[in-house]
C-alpha cells in the first residue's frame, strides 16, 4: 500500500496536502480507492461553500457502492477538480495525483488533529 509521508490524513480516508499559501488540497487515500473499487461518479461541493470538519461534503460512487467524503477541516471550499468529475476512474489510477477539492482553513488548530502517514496506516 502506498501512503506518501508528505501528506496528512483524516481517519475517514481523505489525504490533505498543505500548499505554500496555506490552502489545503484534498483527495482520497489509496486504501480508500482500493476498498471502493472502480470509481464511476464524483459529486463535489459547490465552490464557496463553508464546511465544518467532519461534515459530508462530497460523494464518491464506485460500481459497488456510494461513499461520503468528509471535510478534514473547517473552512471554505475554494476550488473543485472538474477533470476528476469528468474522469472518475482516474482516482483508481493514482489516488494521490488526483485531488478533489481545495479548502481555505478557518481554524489552524484543526490541522494538528490530522494523522501523519504512519498514524493513518496504523488505523487500517
Amino acid at each position, binding site marked *: 500500500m502506498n501512503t506518501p509521508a508528505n501528506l496528512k490524513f483524516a481517519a475517514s480516508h481523505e489525504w490533505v496536502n498543505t500548499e505554500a499559501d496555506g490552502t489545503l488540497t484534498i483527495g482520497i487515500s489509496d486504501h480508500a480507492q482500493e476498498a471502493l*473499487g*472502480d470509481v*464511476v*461518479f464524483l*459529486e463535489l461541493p459547490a465552490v464557496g461553500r463553508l464546511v465544518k470538519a467532519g461534515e459530508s461534503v462530497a*460523494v464518491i*460512487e464506485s*460500481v*459497488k*457502492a*456510494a461513499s461520503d467524503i468528509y471535510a478534514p477541516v473547517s473552512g471554505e471550499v475554494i476550488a473543485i477538480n472538474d477533470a476528476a468529475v469528468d474522469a472518475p*476512474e482516474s482516482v*483508481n489510477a493514482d489516488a494521490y495525483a488526483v485531488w478533489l477539492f481545495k479548502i481555505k482553513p478557518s481554524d489552524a488548530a484543526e490541522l494538528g488533529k490530522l494523522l501523519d502517514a504512519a498514524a493513518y496506516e496504523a488505523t487500517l
Partner: protein
Amino acid sequence: MTQHTPLYDSHLAANGKIVDFAGWEMPIHYGSQVEEHHAVRKDAGMFDVSHMCALDLAGPDATRYLRHLLANDVAKLTTSGKALYSCMLDDGAGVIDDLIVYFFSPERYRIVVNAGTAEKDIAWMRPRLVGFDASLIVRRDVAMIAVQGPQARERFWTAFPVARAHSVTLENFQAAEWSVDKNTWLIARTGYTGEDGFEVTMPADDAAAVWKALLDAGVKPCGLGARDTLRLEAGMNLYGQDMDENISPYEAGLKWTVDLKDADRDFVGKSVLAGRQCNVRFAGLLLLQRGVMRSHMKVHTALGVGETTSGTFSPTLNQSIALARIPAGIENGSEVEVEIRDKKLKAKVVKPTFVRHGQSLL
C-alpha cells in the same frame, strides 16, 4: 458457517478479493470489476458458480412432479438436454426461487438453484415428493464454471478440444452430458450475462484443473461484481433482490415464465395467480443525469411512487441502469424521477433489457 467452493484456492491464487455471499466465501473481483465486465462483453470471462446447487431428479414420476412443482411447464421439453427457466412458487404464488431445469428424459432431470436458497428449496421440494415415484439427490460433489463471452466457446474448446464434438451443435438453452474417464460433465449453453457461452458442471475434484486450463486458454477470471453488472445489463432478475416470497412472478417481469396453456395442469400457486390483479409493472430505468441508482430507491411517476429493485452503473452504456417496480400505466419512454440521497434525478423508463451480445438495445 462459511463455505468454500472447490475453487477457493484458485481464487486466492488469482488475487481474488473475497467476500461473504450467502454464507459462501466468494471472489467479488480479481482487481477491476469493470475490466472483468468488459472481458465478458468483448472476449471471454469465467465465473465460479459452484455455490449454486445442482439437484438430480429421477424416477417414473419426475415429469409429473415438476409439472406440479414449477410455474413453467417442463412438458414442453422434448429434446434431450433442453433447459427451461422457471420460478418455483409457494401456495400464495410468492417466488421461493428461480431455477433452471435440464431435461434428459421424462424420468431424469437436473435442476440448478440459487446458493442462498438451496436449503430452503430442498426443504420445500422433499416433502412434496410424497405421492410421486421420484427421488431428489443433492449434488454437492460437483463444481460449476460459467465461461461467458463472444469467444467463450472457442476458448473452452481450445482448453478441451475433445469437448468440441460434444458441444458444437448445442443450441441456446441446451446441454449435453460428456463422459470423461468414469465421470460425467454437463456442458450447457446457458449463462447469466447476455452473452454466448457455456456453464460447465464437473466433478469437484476436477474443478481446479479446469479453471487452470481455461486460464491458460485466455479466459479472464471474473467475480460476483461483474456477474451482477452483466446480468443487470442483460435484464436478468436476481433472486432476493428483484423478487422473493412476497412477490409473484407477474410483479417481477416473469409472466413469460408462467405457463397456463394446459388448463388441466395444476401447479403450486396457480389458483392465486389466476385471480391476481397486477397493478405494478417491472421496468428498466436509464438515468439521464449523473449518479448511480441502487436498489430500494423511490421512483416518482405520474401515477404514483415505485421502487428500484436493482441498480448499478452500466460499464457498457457508461450510465446508471436499474430494474424497478412502477405503477402499471407508466409506458416505456416516460420520464420519471429517482430519489438518490436528497436529490430527484431524471430517468427514462425502458424495456428491462439493456445490453445483449455486446450491443446496447436502447
